[in-house]
């Protein structure tokens, strides 16, 4: 349908409007473009032969039977595809001496985790390709798995990559004393230990291993028939993928086009340059045919990168009056078997966030990155910051308990007051704006905090079997992953700028090209709102284009809550340039001086007269180019690349009223309230949706999800039967609200919202569970807080023996009473 008539009214005042999404029309009718939907003439289908064992030498591969299966075109190993020397990229060497193993897209000689790809089968259809993988006989000479991080670092441990000489990849330290941004945490803690007016609290927390579990399985199609190789991939990062795939394979970068069509969620899980992308590319080139690979869900859970997996040793020192003195953080972070794209940097993204909203005078952070024979880890929603927020919010509760203080009051005593912004933290970051008091006051009121505290006292006094706890999380996060200079100082391999361009079409419609790559975030709608305001053109007249390196040649893609705070600002900057260029032509059209024009509601008007032209009329005039001022180019299109000076710092207060059945360990979320300050709100409807989804993932870490490995290093819950994503009936409705302190670092005053819910909610839930049973002597329950673990914690605290059955860390089935295959009872072992 063509609509060249400019009938729609300008829709300025879009900022702050809860627009329903324009992208929904396709998605609710099934008119979708998932990568797996793509079918090309002569297309072949690829399936991977994956290692069933964690660590072994490959002593032989017999593919004769597979090759003989009708419909099979080829079976390839790394050497066959010219990939034996290739290594997948790690873009973040966190220390100059970081140890990174060779990471071939297909294993060469040795497999390093169960799921490591060994060979590929290419066939005429998917079913045949998958059938044939079963016929590829691989001989493995087993080597011991490397599973436990502390054992991996011990003297004499099996080395996963013997050529590196160690299982430690890197040791990264920040010390505010050495950086000159604060005192020495070690000294402050030592002093506190000898000071009767001070207290030191130590705890160990465990961040279990999680799986991002985006709903759309990964899929790659490569068509080698054009001048540029075209790769479609279910990826968050088409631009980075293009650059890195070129670097990995030797395909010149100008000979590769990457398209991320409709992408069904990512959550960091599709922030990757995958072995499969490289293998499909190589196979397609070798065969001269389009090749497709789409993973099964089980394959996805097994081989797509995992998230979190840290051991956190936290030490906090405070005066007896509650004033915090120092924080010392010692982490072990599980890299898994290889360093993927930003594996090594994920824990470092938390390095500046453990101090959070509190005024610590001294801070130290140290992290050792460790190799194990498990699926590689990498970004998962929040990436480093959920880990930091969990640790600080848990230890603040522990400090409050040790001091006998009300936990929210203790926080307030130590947090940055609203009049103290901008505030430079002990890490040297400048928090531009915030108001923790306002968010907390609103959250307390919405929860009915004081009444629930009274009810808690009553239930404790009456010995009610169902106890009540209130979980608190007052958090901040660093968002808007950019400033390039900061990323450079952290040895990250790229910049953090973002690009946008605006194309004014002949009849006045607008194409907005953005370098960020949406996969559920609603950028088409939100960017249209921005441009409608900036240019005064109707919302409906704007098309947002993204996710194709040929259409959107420059970008750094979508992750780290950066799209609006960086990419959205690039759109604003491009629009400002369009208006500036249009102003020159408008002045010419109106025979007026540029200085006499005012631009409002899409119209350049001559001050003090009724004369004016619309920006659409200017676009048409520029396109016709019959009568332009001398030396003015016939275009008002513009592009802008924006690199912010600082991160943004959303914050908020999350409160969870948790009920714990002390007889069964069952945990119920009675009420969840969050008040988030994400700066100015562009589209409240989308913001609320992001918060809801974030909460669900953060709560899932607290209560439901964990990737479990057995003692052979096999992932034991690698299907949706036993990797327990919450369903609708596992979650409550949340009470969400906002307070607003605009970011001062960008012209829209926006901060980012994609990760807030996930970062804040996990400690709120766990603090609530522990608060419910703390009076019974419990001060720790490991995540996920399954009924079994909660019940055990209560029993142990009461000095009661628990049956000699599975203990805590490995309980598939989310502890729903299922037998634990990791720790079977003696009599169950056959």
């Amino acid at each position: 349908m063509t609509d060249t008539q400019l009938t729609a009214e300008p829709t300025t005042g879009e900022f702050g409007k809860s627009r329903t999404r324009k992208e929904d029309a396709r998605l609710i009718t099934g008119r979708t473009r998932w990568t797996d939907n793509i079918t090309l003439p002569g297309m072949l289908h690829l399936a991977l032969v994956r290692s069933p064992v964690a660590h072994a030498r490959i002593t032989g591969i017999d593919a004769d039977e597979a090759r003989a299966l009708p419909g099979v075109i080829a079976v390839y190993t790394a050497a066959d595809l010219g990939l034996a020397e290739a290594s997948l990229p790690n873009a973040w060497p966190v220390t100059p001496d970081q140890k990174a193993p060779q990471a071939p897209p297909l294993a060469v000689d040795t497999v390093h985790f169960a799921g490591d790809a060994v060979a590929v089968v290419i066939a005429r259809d998917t079913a045949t390709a998958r059938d044939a993988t079963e016929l590829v006989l691989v001989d493995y000479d087993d080597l011991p798995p490397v599973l436990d991080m502390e054992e991996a670092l011990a003297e004499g441990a099996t080395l996963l990559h013997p050529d590196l000489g160690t299982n430690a990849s890197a040791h990264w330290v920040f010390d505010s004393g050495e950086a000159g941004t604060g005192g020495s945490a070690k000294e402050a803690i030592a002093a506190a230990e000898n000071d009767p007016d001070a207290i030191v609290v130590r705890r160990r927390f465990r961040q279990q291993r999680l799986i991002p579990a985006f709903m759309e399985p990964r899929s790659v199609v490569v068509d080698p028939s054009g001048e540029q190789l075209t790769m479609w991939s279910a990826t968050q990062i088409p631009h980075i993928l293009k650059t890195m795939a070129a670097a990995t394979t030797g395909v010149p970068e100008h000979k590769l086009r990457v398209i991320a069509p409709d992408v069904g969620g990512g959550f960091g899980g599709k922030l990757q340059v995958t072995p499969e992308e490289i293998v499909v590319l190589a196979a397609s080139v070798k065969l001269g045919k389009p090749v497709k690979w789409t993973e099964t869900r089980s394959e996805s859970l097994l081989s797509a990168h995992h998230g979190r997996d840290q051991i956190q040793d936290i030490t906090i020192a405070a005066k007896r009056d509650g004033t915090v003195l120092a924080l010392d953080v010692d982490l072990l972070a599980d890299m898994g078997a290889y360093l993927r794209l930003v594996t090594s940097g994920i824990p470092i993204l938390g390095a500046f966030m453990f101090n959070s909203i509190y005024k610590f005078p001294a801070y130290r952070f140290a992290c050792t990155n460790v190799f194990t024979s498990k699926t590689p880890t990498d970004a998962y929603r929040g990436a480093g910051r959920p880990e930091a927020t969990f640790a600080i919010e848990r230890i603040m509760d522990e400090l409050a308990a040790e001091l006998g203080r009300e936990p929210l009051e203790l926080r307030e005593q130590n947090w940055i007051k609203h009049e103290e912004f901008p505030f430079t933290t002990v890490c040297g970051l400048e928090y531009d704006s915030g108001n923790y008091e306002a968010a907390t006051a609103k959250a307390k009121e919405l929860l009915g905090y004081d009444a629930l505290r009274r009810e808690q006292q009553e239930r404790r006094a009456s010995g009610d079997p169902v106890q009540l706890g209130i979980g608190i999380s007052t958090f901040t996060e660093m968002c808007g992953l950019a400033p390039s200079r900061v990323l450079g100082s952290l040895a990250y391999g790229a910049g953090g700028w973002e690009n946008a361009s605006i194309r004014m079409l002949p009849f006045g419609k607008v194409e907005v090209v953005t370098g960020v790559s949406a996969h559920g975030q609603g950028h088409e709608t939100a960017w249209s709102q921005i441009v409608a305001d900036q240019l005064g053109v109707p919302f409906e007249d704007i098309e947002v284009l993204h996710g194709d390196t040929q259409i959107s040649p420059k970008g750094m893609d979508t992750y780290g809550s950066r799209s609006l705070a960086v990419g959205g600002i690039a759109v604003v900057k491009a629009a400002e340039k369009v208006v500036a260029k249009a102003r020159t032509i408008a002045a010419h059209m109106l025979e007026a001086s540029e200085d006499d024009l005012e631009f409002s509601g899409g119209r350049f008007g001559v001050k003090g007269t009724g004369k004016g032209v619309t920006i659409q009329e200017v676009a048409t005039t520029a396109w016709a180019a019959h009568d332009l001022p001398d030396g003015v180019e016939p275009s008002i299109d513009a592009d802008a690349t924006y690199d912010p000076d600082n991160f943004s710092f959303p914050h908020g207060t999350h409160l969870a009223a948790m009920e714990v059945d002390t007889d069964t360990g069952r945990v119920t979320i009675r009420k969840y309230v969050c008040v988030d300050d994400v700066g100015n709100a562009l589209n409240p409807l989308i913001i609320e949706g992001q918060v809801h989804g974030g909460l669900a993932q953060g709560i899932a870490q607290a209560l439901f999800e964990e990737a479990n490995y057995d003692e052979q290093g096999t992932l034991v819950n690698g299907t949706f039967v036993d990797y327990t994503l919450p369903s609708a009936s596992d979650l409550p409705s949340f009470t969400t609200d906002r307070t607003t302190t605009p970011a001062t670092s960008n012209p829209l005053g926006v901060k980012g919202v994609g990760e807030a819910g996930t970062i804040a909610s996990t400690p709120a839930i766990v603090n609530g569970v522990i608060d419910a049973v703390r009076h019974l002597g419990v001060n720790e329950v490991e995540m996920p807080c399954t009924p079994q673990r909660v019940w055990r914690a209560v029993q142990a605290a009461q000095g009661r023996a628990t049956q000699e059955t599975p203990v805590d860390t490995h309980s598939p089935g989310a502890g729903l009473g299922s037998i634990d295959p990791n720790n079977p009872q003696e009599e169950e072992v056959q």
Partner: protein
Amino acid sequence: MAQVRVTVDGVQYVDEVEPRMLLVYYLRERLGKTGTVVGCDTSNCGACTVHLNGQSVKSCSVLAVQADGAEVTTIEGLARDGQLHPVQKAFNECHALQCGFCTPGMVMQAVDLLGDNPDPDEHEVREGIEGNLCRCTGYQNIVRAVQSAAHAMKPGVAAPVETPAPVAGS
């Protein structure tokens, strides 16, 4: 090979299929009905939900040959005469989708749920869609959408709407 005769979104098809072919692959690969998607391999996620003779089924758990003689409605056949089904409309209005991958299955399941229970409370909605996983929304807006659609589908509230086809052959 086995022959199937099946009506999908109002169009009749006759095809030879491998007996092991799942209905979802028949829909996607043979008929190009790519609106219906595959999200898992253990029938847990519900992304592939369609209606088989008016009842919701996970099309990854039905063989194509089992659909012989049946009528299948997918997300692509839900809107009639250019009019969105009230559930589709409510999903947009309530922001009940983000990436949209679970949406086809979620919508088809919600339509089925409202056929059984035209006025579900929040708990009933949550129970009714628990076989469909969503990773983006935290379900809250999906629940809101289903209840909003229920309201819109009440007689007299809005224009008459298509209800699921009656169960045939059962």
